């Protein structure tokens, strides 16, 4: 252990905002000790910080050409791709302690995640949604005639969740691309990454970073939240249905409200992925989807439908998956759980054990001494959520196409499907899954890694934020007539 001692503010406000009172938390890490400073907030601080950030945005970011914004984000991201970048090292030291996830997983997944925001990917985000991203700089011609320009909100209030480290960066970058100031409310479960990322931006361009405010507080501080809502033009809320509802009720109608609430993802394994030369890889991929971030991300599978007819049966598959999860546990132990989370796993196991005692064709495979992992095998296809934290249902099915039908009633919650099937079925099955309400089909083994340009929960990343102004063709034509030099 080195003797370094760092003091780190777990917030970011424009320079002229003063935060006088903080409480401190000392944390020991592999890289030495840190003193984390959490601000004591008041409604006045929120108002002041938001106003100054928005001013900074109005006079600077709003006029910055889009490609310069892209360049600047890219340069900040490039820093994060250097293993020796001090802030990355801080993140790698602190996040395992703040979140409980294994340090190797964080190291690996964080850098993979940050690669999503290199320049080429940022261009992909923009091109995906705008015919002409230059619309964010000024009026551009439309195919149907006339001209249009897109304006981002003056200020976006981001309500972040803390389930997956760094996930907030996606939201912050989307806001920057539409040239909005940001007021980010971090969750106490992971308040770090938005702060570190805005520090990186400040290293590149301090004026740009002036339009970002990051403040941690516990959800439910009604006065702070009211001020934040007043200050913003748009809200993006991540979290549970309860969290989303709590905000939705209070948002004035004229503000744009985007939310990313509860979602369930699942996986489907076709018999073609269970051939003698394939099944091990299939298992390995699925175990990774379950183990990375302990299914806390809504992208991770909670159940898997396994087709009969491969060299291993769905039941064999469950047992082998259990072995694979045991190996993960040895290599990358799951994070420690709250009492509630642990008991939820016992309840799920009990439910299955009792069903089996009552004659249901159900088998439970589980880590022996604790709740580290659980595989529940069901002979009969059904739908069942998981209490997460490496708990998965395996449903045996004769064919995946039929299984897809059972999903429809849960459409409101469905999100990703990790799919392992041959090319001849990929599209027909995806059609069915799409009809059932899923919005993302990806490879198993990649479920936790949504790609740039993903239609997040079936929606847009940028288009939903902006407001368009159209100059109709008629205005253009009429303007021509007022040209003193017109013939």
């Amino acid at each position, binding site marked *: 252990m080195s003797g370094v001692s760092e003091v780190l503010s777990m917030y970011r406000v424009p320079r002229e905002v003063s935060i006088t009172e903080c409480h401190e938390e000392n944390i020991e890490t592999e890289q030495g000790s840190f003193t984390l400073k959490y601000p004591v907030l008041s409604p006045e601080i929120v108002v002041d910080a938001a106003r100054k950030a928005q001013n900074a945005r109005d006079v600077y970011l709003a006029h910055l050409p889009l490609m310069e914004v892209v360049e600047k984000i890219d340069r900040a991201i490039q820093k994060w791709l250097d293993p020796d970048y001090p802030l990355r090292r801080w993140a790698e030291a602190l996040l395992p302690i703040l979140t409980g996830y294994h340090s190797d997983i964080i190291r690996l997944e964080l850098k993979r995640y940050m690669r999503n925001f290199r320049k080429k990917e940022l261009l992909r985000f923009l091109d995906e949604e705008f015919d002409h991203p230059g619309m964010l700089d000024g009026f551009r011609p439309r195919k149907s005639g006339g001209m249009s320009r897109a304006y981002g909100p003056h200020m976006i209030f981001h309500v972040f969740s803390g389930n997956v480290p760094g996930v907030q960066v996606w939201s912050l970058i989307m806001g920057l691309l539409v040239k909005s100031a940001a007021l980010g409310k971090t969750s106490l479960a992971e308040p770090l990454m938005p702060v570190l990322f805005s520090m990186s931006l400040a290293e590149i361009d301090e004026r740009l970073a002036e339009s970002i405010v990051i403040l941690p507080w516990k959800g439910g501080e009604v006065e702070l939240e009211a001020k934040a809502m007043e200050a913003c033009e748009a809200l993006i809320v991540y979290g549970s249905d309860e969290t989303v509802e709590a905000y939705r009720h209070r948002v004035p109608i004229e503000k744009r409200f985007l939310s990313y609430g509860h979602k*369930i993802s699942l996986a489907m394994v076709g018999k073609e992925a269970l051939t003698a030369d394939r099944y091990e890889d299939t298992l390995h991929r699925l175990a990774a989807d379950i183990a990375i971030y302990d299914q806390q991300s809504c992208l991770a599978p909670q159940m898997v439908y396994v087709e009969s007819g491969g060299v291993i049966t769905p039941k064999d598959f469950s047992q082998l998956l259990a072995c694979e999860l045991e190996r993960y546990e040895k290599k990358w132990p799951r994070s420690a759980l709250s*009492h*509630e989370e642990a008991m*939820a796993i016992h309840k799920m196991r009990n439910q299955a054990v*009792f069903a089996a*005692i009552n004659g249901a064709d159900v088998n439970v495979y589980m880590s022996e001494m604790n709740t580290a992992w659980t595989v529940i095998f069901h002979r009969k296809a059904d739908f069942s959520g*998981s209490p997460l934290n490496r708990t998965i249902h395996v449903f045996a099915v004769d064919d995946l196409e039929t299984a897809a039908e059972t999903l429809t009633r849960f459409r409101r919650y469905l999100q990703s499907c990790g799919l392992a099937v041959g090319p001849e079925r990929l599209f027909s099955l995806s059609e069915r899954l799409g009809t059932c309400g899923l919005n993302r089909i990806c490879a198993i083994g990649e479920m936790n890694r949504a790609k740039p340009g993903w239609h997040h929960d079936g929606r847009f990343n940028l288009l939903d934020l902006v407001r368009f102004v159209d100059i109709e063709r008629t205005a253009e034509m009429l303007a021509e007539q007022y040209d003193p030099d017109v013939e």
Partner: protein
Amino acid sequence: MKKDSEIIIQKIMAHLTDTLGDEDFQTLALELFRYQFQYNLPYKKFCQAQQKTPLTVSDWRDIPPISIQGFKALTLSCEPIEDCEAVFMTSGTTNPEKRGRHYHPTLKVWDRSMKGPFKDFVLPDRERITTLVISPTEDQNRFSSLARYLTNAVTHFGTARSRTFFTENGLDVDGVVNALRQSEETGDPVLLMGATFSYVHLLDALQEKDDRFSLPKGSRIFDTGGFKGQSREVEMEALYQQFEEIFGVKREMCINMYGMTELSSQMYDQTIRTKFSDGPVIFDKKGPAWVRTVVLDPNTLTPVQPGEIGVLAHYDLANWNSCLAVLTEDLGIEKENGFKLLGRIKGSEARGCSIAVDQLLSANAIQG
């Protein structure tokens, strides 16, 4: 009833005494486990799934506790359920089919297990007391163990003035007020009894009418059930403060009983009992000698280090027909003189946007 059942009942009845020591508890628990393993088939399968059998279990602490979920999902009875004198059900409201059921082929063990400790913890100083009941009793709900409990209390420990004030129209507040005023005048101490939430209604009504009492010396207030939330402790203390303000009954004469449909014995605050002995007043909970409570780590379900919070499991010898070892969903902590109840474990809460199973189930229940 089968012969073995009669034998086990007899043995247990003989041991439902204050003086039951560790050694006898051990012997009896293991014998009861053998009996239940033999006759309670779902429980046997549950034990086998955990590789626990009478051959491998040599200490009562190793007897696998069955979760209270088991009382919902399984039929846990050594005797045929058709022949049972009573079945007590949990009060789950969402799905009546899925209420926990506890079968009692005879109520004599249950009754015996109730009476001694009741006397010991609630009425250590007297034989009988005027008992005013504000929750439903047995004639109103024969499937409720609490109703049976309340009726027993009135029958065996009540005076002629004892009454229940819960009718099909709800609580008869005026009746309660009159009875309390009468006690004030005559100096006849009362025992108020009811579920914790019943008091909330009563106190609201009394506060609205601005009724205050100064109940005679020796009066006491009994509540059970507590509050479900995480702030249990705070809410309970606030309630006891209101008891003092409105009824003039001090904290040490208030007693919270901790009982469960899935058990056949009850546990109590030791307030009243210790008040009437010479030592200091103890607030920790304790059960009779035939109940042992352990605090388990929710992750491993093995005992926590002393002083750590965990989930409670109870080993109740009076639970002869179902399972003597029951795993609750209550958090608690071991104390010097018993244990402290910290409230119910909430449903699991996912940290982010991923929906967890409880919420999904409730969402489905809403949809329909």
